[in-house]
């Protein structure tokens, strides 16, 4: 009975205290007021930037980014301008996938589970959505399929007066498009498409030279590395030696009017972290002074690091020392990771099927009466009865017509045909015409990068041997040799 009275009393208390005349907010303001205030604060930050914001955007992880400018007003309008986006098709032909747009549209900032920025009409972000690329089908063909992404609803992860960080609201999977906005300057709004194209050309081919490599140096440090760039896809790879281990770090980049920026900064060592490089036309270099460390990129015929191949045509990694990110599922875009430099080298690999490698025997300049400069072709896969498979060497006389440090251009002497015919053992096996492809390669004005070494003849007399790395058999791995070479030529 006592329990019953307790229940009654407790229930009455609950009943009559459950509602009061006025609901008291937990905070000073109501939920609606606080949400509205939050939204207004975000809008204020966005709209307070006098010349708006600049960020770099692309919808996928496998490409770099392109500049986008935005200028917000407090009454819900935003002006958006973007750089032209050109991406090559499968045949390497550049085509414009997003024209230079300049849109004025409405936006809203709302708060549900997160505070979001939503662009209410189509603009450059949606143009990304419309991009289609060839993707492989199960039967080995390809089909034009959406590139993916193209976000127009962003979570405002952080909003400060000098930096706003946006993240895709709807991206699925691990990769979430992030758009970091920084305050724009007035001049940023004047995209000079020609200048951007020139910066792209410089980054691709070098402004004033035909040198392949972009050697990286850090002031005051013993650093060895180089940069490889695929400017079409806005991808850069930094190759460098880190305690005798090759590091190969890809980064998404954006080309600016004065150089390029990295989407994610790269920490090379304890004190060196690079994020932005400015091009200097006078001395044809890129420089960065991020974190107060002077980093320079200059054109060179000498690669900082060589390993061969980096990522082969099947997308596999070369050795455990290579630290790189490779997503084979997007093989159609892997050009974005393998640089054009690599292909420039590889084009000379396309020689006869049986060609194993080529040795270049340089005439010893101190001994003019010694052996003449020749190229030795080493064939295998040729059947030479009664021995079966064996290597065959053919010496071809060449003339060095340009020699610049480690880069050299050759000219085959007119009697190269006789060289084939004079080799009695092979004259019936090798058609001189089969060397036409080789001739084309050897006379390429861009020359070759050479690996010199010292051999000893049978009589013990040393002579210089130079290996053309660019015509190596794909099965040959150079990593070890090159590390030794690089150390010996410091």
């Amino acid at each position, binding site marked *: 009975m006592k329990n*019953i009275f307790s229940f009654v009393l407790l229930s009455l208390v609950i009943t009559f205290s459950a509602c009061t005349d006025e609901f008291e907010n937990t905070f000073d303001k109501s939920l609606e007021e606080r949400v509205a205030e939050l939204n207004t604060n975000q809008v204020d930050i966005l709209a307070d930037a006098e010349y708006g914001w600049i960020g770099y955007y692309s919808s996928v992880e496998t490409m770099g980014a392109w500049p986008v400018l935005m200028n917000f007003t407090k009454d819900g309008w935003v002006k958006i301008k973007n750089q032209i986006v050109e991406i090559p098709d499968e045949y390497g032909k550049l085509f414009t996938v997003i024209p230079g747009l300049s849109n004025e549209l409405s936006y809203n900032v709302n708060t549900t589970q997160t505070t979001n920025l939503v662009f209410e009409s189509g603009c450059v972000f949606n143009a990304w959505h419309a991009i289609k690329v060839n993707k492989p089908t199960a039967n080995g063909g390809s089909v034009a399929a959406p590139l993916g992404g193209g976000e127009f609803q962003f979570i405002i992860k952080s909003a400060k007066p000098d930096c706003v960080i946006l993240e895709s609201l709807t991206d699925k999977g691990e990769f979430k498009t992030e758009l970091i906005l920084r305050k724009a300057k007035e001049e940023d709004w004047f995209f000079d498409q020609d200048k951007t194209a020139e910066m792209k050309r410089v980054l691709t081919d070098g402004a004033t030279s035909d040198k392949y490599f972009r050697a990286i140096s850090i002031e005051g440090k013993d650093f060895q590395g180089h940069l490889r760039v695929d400017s079409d896809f806005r991808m850069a790879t930094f190759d460098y030696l880190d305690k005798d281990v090759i590091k190969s770090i890809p980064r998404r980049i954006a080309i600016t009017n004065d150089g390029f920026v990295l989407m994610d900064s790269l920490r090379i060592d304890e004190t060196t972290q690079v994020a932005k490089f400015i091009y200097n036309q006078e001395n044809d270099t890129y420089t960065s002074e991020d974190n107060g460390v002077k980093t320079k990129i200059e054109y060179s015929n000498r690669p900082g690091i060589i390993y061969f191949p980096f990522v082969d045509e099947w997308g596999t990694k070369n050795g455990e020392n290579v630290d790189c990110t490779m997503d084979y599922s997007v093989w159609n875009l892997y050009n974005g990771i393998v640089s054009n430099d690599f292909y420039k080298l590889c084009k000379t690999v396309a020689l006869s099927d049986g060609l194993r490698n080529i040795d270049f025997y340089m005439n010893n300049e101190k001994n003019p009466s010694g052996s003449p400069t020749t190229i030795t072709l080493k064939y295998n896969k040729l059947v030479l009865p009664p021995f079966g498979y064996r290597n065959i060497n053919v010496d071809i006389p060449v003339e060095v017509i340009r020699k610049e440090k480690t880069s050299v251009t050759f000219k085959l002497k007119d009697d190269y045909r006789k060289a084939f015919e004079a080799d009695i053992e092979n004259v019936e096996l090798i058609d001189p015409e089969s060397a036409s492809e080789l001739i084309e390669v050897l006379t390429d004005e861009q020359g070759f990068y050479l690996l010199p070494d010292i051999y000893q003849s049978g009589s013990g007399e040393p002579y210089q041997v130079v290996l053309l790395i660019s015509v190596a058999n794909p099965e040959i791995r150079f990593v070890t040799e090159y590390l030794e070479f690089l150390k010996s030529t410091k």
Partner: protein
Amino acid sequence: MKINNKILFMFLAVLTLFTSCDKDDELNYEKREIVESTDEIDLFMKDHFLDKYNCAIRWKWDDKFVAIDYYVSPPMREVVIKTAEMVEDFWVNPFIESSEGGKAFIEKNFPPEIVFIGSEILNQNGTETLGFAEAGVRITLTEVNQFDLKDEKWLKTQLHTIHHEFTHIVHQTYKLPNGFEKISGSFYSGNSWTTLVDYQKNAKGEVLRDEDGEPIFDHSPAIKRGVTTAYGTTNEFEDFAELVSNFIITDADEFNDTYLPVSDAEIQEAVLKVYNEIIAATTEEVITIKMEAFYAAYLEGKSIEECQAAGDKAVSEYAIKKSVEKSDELRALNSGKIIIKEKLEMTKAYYQNNFDVDLENLRDIVQERIVNAQKGEE
């Protein structure tokens, strides 16, 4: 005692329910102040759709109109008014101009909500949704960012969506024509309709493609079932929507050639044409047949005249075989076309008798506008 406790608890519970919230209590909720938009697009939509048809055009992005599983883009501002004008010119006005009944019909049944989507709706499995109608109240148009009235393919895709979805609203409001669903009852196959999707092929069996590289549909498998498209074989409602929309957006001659039956004499003429073409042909295929027969006879020691006769006979037999195949194909198609014609006549009468809408007149108006649009004329 236990019973008494239960009664007491119930009493308290009821008391709590009826006293805990007083209906006069004011909720601490601030009503959102609605400010009427001064955006020129909103003003256009108000004048042309909201005030006239009580229809809201949703053109600004609002995620409640598309499920989060889909990949879509909002429309560009530049195409919004143009798309709305297309809706007027190719949908609303043709009904209004077709007859008094058509005017009343469109005004009464116009959907209360139309959603514009800039892109296609990409499903997670990679397929595309071209548009959809929901419970007779909302029609969603996709790919409006590709707006180009001179692009016949784009325009007809949009009109197909519009008239297909509006036809759904019609049958959702008034039911199907009486008996429509029984005509092809056993031919409907639900989601298996995809097995009937086929593409036109050339003599080598290669799929023919349009100028955009898209494969060109071959509707024959569906037509043989008495339905205009493979999708129409899903059920009677999709059949009805496909029939009406295809009738309106397809050129009259093309519709008749593709979907309506021909006479036996026309079939015989077509079969004879196949026979004669093979007999007269100098294609590699025919010459090979002739030469193989010729050579076989030659090996048997026949005279040249006999060898030639053997070659001619082989070609003739081949021509007869192909003619029979053609005949079978045309007759199978024709049996389906007879069914389509029956349903079309039923549908025309349904629109005419119930709504005073002359579908042929409506079709002619739409077709004239499509032709003018290709010429760049209003």
